[in-house]
């Protein structure tokens, strides 16, 4: 095969043990997680083993891909595949959050009012919990049995507002980093990226403090009825995504210091930046619908 053909080839990687190793690691994590939830002593050990394997596989797999990228095996067509992959992965994440936002809206607009007798809920209210009056954020659950009571919820205009400012700023800094990368200004790229990572860390730190406050002083827990449930599910998964995003940005930062990426060839940077904007947008939704209105 001549050289031009070799270049025209779409890069089909050679057989790899990483996918099946990843499945095995996740399998161990699921088995460990499930047995832990069932209260079986060996569960956490299996979970830990699985997690170890998971981390090793991700290091190996991403390391291989980075190596292939640096070796110039990816041309524009592979780049498009990666972009589509990341784009639709983020869309699937959007739909994952949509399920919890849906639960929030449904609880607020339908189930809580119906429980207090609105709409077709008159009989429900009369026969089940006649003393229940709709309130939002729901502090008093229809039945106290099985649920703890929250004294208050976290207001929007304290730490959540700061966190909103922090994440929006981080969206700005990551864009500045991108411009610096496209301009070929590496020190500026590293500076803006480091700032973005720092903002991510500060966000997670403040959010953790807020959780402590909610649990220890306000009595707002996962167990405090539907508001607590939606609050912790939405902010919890969001916080997890911010932590992942921060870690991904940190990897990109490390790669930038090693001299990876060129003004034209930096899919990984853009993928992480997209992801970061995605967690940013989700946060704005959270701020408005969970904390504010």
């Amino acid at each position, binding site marked *: 095969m001549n050289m031009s053909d070799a270049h025209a080839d779409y890069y089909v990687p050679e057989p790899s043990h990483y996918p099946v190793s990843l499945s095995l690691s996740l399998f161990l994590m699921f088995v460990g997680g499930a047995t832990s*939830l069932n209260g079986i002593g060996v569960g956490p050990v299996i979970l830990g083993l699985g997690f170890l394997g998971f981390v090793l596989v991700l290091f190996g797999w991403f390391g291989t891909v980075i190596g292939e990228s640096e070796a110039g095996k990816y041309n524009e067509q592979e780049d498009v595949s990666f972009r589509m992959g990341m784009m639709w992965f983020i869309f*699937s994440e959007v739909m994952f959050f949509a*399920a919890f936002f849906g*639960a929030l809206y449904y609880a607020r607009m339908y189930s809580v009012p119906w*429980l207090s007798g609105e709409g077709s809920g008159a009989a429900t209210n009369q026969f089940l919990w006649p003393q229940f009056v709709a309130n939002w954020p729901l502090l008093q659950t229809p039945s106290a049995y099985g649920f703890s009571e929250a004294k208050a919820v976290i207001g929007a205009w304290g730490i959540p507002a700061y966190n909103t400012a922090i994440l929006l700023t981080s969206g700005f800094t990551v864009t500045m980093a991108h411009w610096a990368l496209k301009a070929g200004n590496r020190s500026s790229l590293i500076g803006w990226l480091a700032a973005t990572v720092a903002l991510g860390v500060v966000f997670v730190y403040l959010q953790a403090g807020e959780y402590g406050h909610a649990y220890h002083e306000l009595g707002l827990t996962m167990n405090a009825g539907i508001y607590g449930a939606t609050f912790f599910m939405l902010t919890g998964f969001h916080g997890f995504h911010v932590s992942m995003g921060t870690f991904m940005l940190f990897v990109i930062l490390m790669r930038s210091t090693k001299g990876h990426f060129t003004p034209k060839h930096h899919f990984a940077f853009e993928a992480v930046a997209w992801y970061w904007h995605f967690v940013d947008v989700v946060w704005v939704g959270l701020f408005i619908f969970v904390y504010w209105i």
Partner: protein
Amino acid sequence: MSDAAAHGEHDEHHGYHPGGMKRWLFTTNHKDIGTMYLIFALIMFFIGGAMAMVIRLELFQPGLQFVEPQFFNSMTTMHALVMIFGAVMPAWTGFANWLIPMMIGAPDMALPRLNNWSFWILPFAFTLLLGTFFMPGGAPAGGWTMYPPLVLQTGDAFPFLIFAVHFMGASSIAGAINIIATVFNMRAPGMTLMKLPLFVWTWIITAFLLIASIPVLAGAVTMLLTDKFFGTAFFAASGGGDPVMFQHIFWFFGHPEVYILILPAFGIASAIIPTFARKPLFGYASMVYATGAIAFLSFIVWAHHMFTVGMPLAGELFFMYTTVLIAVPTGVKVFNWCATLWQSSITFEVPMLFSLAFVILFTIGGFSGLMLGITPVDFQYHDTYFVVAHFHYVLVTGAIFSIISATYFWLPKWTGHMYDETLGKWHFWLSTISVNVLFFPQHFLGLAGMPRRIPDYAVQFADFNMVSSIGGFVFGFSQILFVMVIWKCVKGGEKATDRVWEGAHGLEWTLPSPPPYHSFTTPPAPASIEGGMR
């Protein structure tokens, strides 16, 4: 880069071909992965089928003869999960893997390692799921729809069920992303979107449905998990939540899911019917638009699965109208297939027989779906055997018949041998007669009021149940013929030509039978690309 270096690199990346087990574990080849998907689906078809045999055995006569009610409920629950997530979905992904790169003139799938991962999740996920049979409390028995609060009473199996669903979901999403990237990025020059074979089109739309709906299922089962173990109140009215909310979220996934199972079947019928009718498909563009319309509507019809939960009247009416609206694009498809057959010269090889049976029997399932979609009468039909009859017509004689049809159609291409036509005809006639004996009487049972998911029933239902069970056993054992045909065809047989079928059109038929390990290492000539399934 020097010539020599280019050579070295090239040899390196085509050089590593482990043999034996490692070939299958580590492969990045779309054909290997497609084969594994299809074999996995076939195994799951028999595991799920064995569960169906237990169900029909217990229902052969009224009374409890063979299994405990709890185990019976596990059978119905696991039969559904195994057939939906283990048999039909992996079968479609297997066909997509084998065919899409060949149909669009690509060397392989866009993301080959991700492709391997999508497959290799499945054996692990189903180990999680099927392992629950050996746990305290037994396998999940609350129905595949996992409605709370009943599902929360599952024993040790509960977290395994949830994690299995998460795991399978990851596989589906990764597979869907791969197919989207492949079709939008890997088409040969000249293969414009409106020249794509309809199987590719229907799969693209299926992939979008998967990406939009599977994460919602993941969210729903995550809420079940936290309700059970972390004290959240999503589905507990006493905490301000609502068990009906689960049904809304579940069916927001569940209705697109049924189109995930059936849309690729529309693509298969649109490939096979024109081939054996020796006439181009009637209304190619309208087929594409109808598929898109069905996919769009599938997101706004979900509550027709729950008309009896006590929704506001406006909701019932909205979901009834949108549901009945789906009949329009579906009707476009059925009429197009009929118009393709009109004044054509038809031969009745096995793939064509199964595809024709698909059109007729799927349409019966579609009509009973219309009946169920009409709110006032659904109050009578809801949760009866009428529903069971309906979705088995669309899934068994719809999706499964189409999968079988496609297997016969492309098997000569894949193996290089013709299958045994006589054995195939036996398989067809036994399957088609018995499947109707199996499911048609269930319409009558349902209309007479027999509820679904029960191990015992009133004696008035005895006769039709016995007929149905006999049909079930014949149908089940007929599928052994299918395995025999596949086995014989893989092992040998009359040599297949490249085109295989006289009326076959499309890029995959321009390759040798069997095709080389790497399909189109260089893109096919634009002139060889025929428009829209011709």
